[in-house]
């Protein structure tokens, strides 16, 4: 902390008024670069874990234990030709991957990594998250439409209907958190979960159904298995990114994994007390947040290794007929519960 202050003072002395934007850019880089690194190694972790669950070793040829595999994949994708399909709308086709990735990264602005450690400690943090995550779908729709390909278009339509349906369940689940925390500030939500009993104070206990619904809806929002109908390879080739190659494809890939990490971080912050320690005798620290996030990321991969893909009508039924009524009821339950002395959180 003292070191940070000296750096800040030095910067202010050197650059004066221009220091603030420079410092913000530095902070953004400090958040974004580790995310990019995590995404790279998450792809390796996914292939390794899927491999282990299928009783095989996973990639192990590039570097020791396959540790250089993400690097090899990245270089391959960078060097590949970007093919623009005939009769596609070129600008939208090229803009779509960027539109997919940008919200996935922008949402990180309000995630508190530790007490007071957030890029932007805004009051409407929760709303901001909801708004930004709902924008990710534009990348997918535009990609599907601009590709001028029926597979891409079908994938985009599927993903669109899916995201719109599950966003509602997700939003209602977050409304419960908002009720419990009585704040939309992400830092306050975590601080509201602080108690002398460690993990008993976290919101996943009173809001357990919402916790489950939120994470499952999160899996659906990121188009991950078993909800990966948008890129249902046995039916619509690769879905919305059928026509993408090289860097465009890599950006979609990055966006998907960045979204996975984001959902893990959000679930940890909203329901599992973010940076709070699960037991009172250990100090709170950012490490707890990372541990919780890793757990959820592992769940993502575990789900993919276990469950077969949903059929489309089953997916819609789950979203509209199960999750939305369940979340609506729980909003009422929590609101009533909070008026009674039985509410201990």
């Amino acid at each position, binding site marked *: 902390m003292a070191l940070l202050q000296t750096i800040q003072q030095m910067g202010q002395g050197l650059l004066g008024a221009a220091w603030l934007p420079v410092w913000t850019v530095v902070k953004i880089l400090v958040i974004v670069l580790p995310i990019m690194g995590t995404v790279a190694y998450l792809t390796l972790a996914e292939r390794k874990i899927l491999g282990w669950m299928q009783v095989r070793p996973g990639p192990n040829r590039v570097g020791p234990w396959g540790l250089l595999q993400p690097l090899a994949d990245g270089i391959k994708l960078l060097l590949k030709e970007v093919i623009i399909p005939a009769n596609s709308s070129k600008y*939208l086709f090229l803009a779509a991957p960027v539109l997919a990735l940008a919200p996935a990264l922008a949402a990180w602005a309000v995630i508190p990594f530790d007490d007071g450690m957030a890029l932007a400690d*805004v*009051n*409407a943090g929760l*709303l*901001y998250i*909801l*708004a*930004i995550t*709902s*924008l990710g*779908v*534009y990348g997918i*729709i*535009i990609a599907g*439409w601009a590709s001028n390909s029926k597979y891409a*278009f079908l994938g985009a*339509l599927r993903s*669109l*209907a899916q*995201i*719109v349906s599950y*966003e509602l369940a997700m939003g209602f689940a977050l409304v419960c958190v908002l009720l419990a925390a009585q704040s*939309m500030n992400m830092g306050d939500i975590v601080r509201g979960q602080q108690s002398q009993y460690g993990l008993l104070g976290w919101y996943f206990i009173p809001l357990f159904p919402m916790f489950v619904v939120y994470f499952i809806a999160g899996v659906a929002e990121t188009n991950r298995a078993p909800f990966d109908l948008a890129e249902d390879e046995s039916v619509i080739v690769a879905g919305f990114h059928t026509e993408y190659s090289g860097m465009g494809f890599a950006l979609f890939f990055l966006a998907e994994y960045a979204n996975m990490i984001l959902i893990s971080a959000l679930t940890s912050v909203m329901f599992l007390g973010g940076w709070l320690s699960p037991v009172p005798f250990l100090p709170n620290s950012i490490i707890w947040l990372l541990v919780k996030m890793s757990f959820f990321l592992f769940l993502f991969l575990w789900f993919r290794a276990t469950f077969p893909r949903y059929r489309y*009508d*089953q997916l819609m*039924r789950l979203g509209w*007929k199960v999750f939305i009524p369940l979340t609506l009821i729980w909003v009422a339950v929590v609101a009533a519960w909070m008026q009674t002395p039985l509410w201990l959180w």
Partner: protein
Amino acid sequence: MNFETLVFYLFAAMSVFAALRVITVRNPVYAALFLVLAFFSMAGIWLLLEAEFLAITLVLVYVGAVMVLFLFVVMMLDVDLVQLREGFWRWFPFGVVLAAIMVFEMVMVLGARQTSETGVHLAKHAADYSNTKELGRLVYTDYVYPFELAAVLLLVAIVAAIALTLRRRKDVKSQNVAQQIAARREDNVRMVQMPAEKKGSVAGNQESEKA
């Protein structure tokens, strides 16, 4: 000109440009996307006014949900542009009159406030000022009846929309997912106990044939 003014003009220019493109661009999908851009720039302007709740809600509701559904429909529709532009000049005077009336109304509404409160600048709020909380308080106290009325109207609209589109088609064979999920093994599988075949009855015959 300070930084905030610069940002304001940037957003204002963007929204005017985007709004113009919405009505001039030929392809309806592009028009919808320009409308999204217009919403975005308006959200930016609202943010400058410290109305962060409204700005984010605009993005969340209009950009995140309404325009997505719009795009959904526009992409699926096979819009015939020639047919669309057929009656343009016939309806043009009517459109101009309508636009003029709307501009006049807007000027009246906005202009009245401008003149009555000339020189009054928006007060700067403290850092812990919560726009959301203020808005919530107003909506549930002073404006509770209009607010509830709007909510009821929306509900009626939802019911009406569903009632208009709901129809049972007899020729469609759809699966009953609830029934499929509720199916248990016991419903469909019957375990049958059968005595084991004696050696020499069937297998024995084959042996003898081979020999």
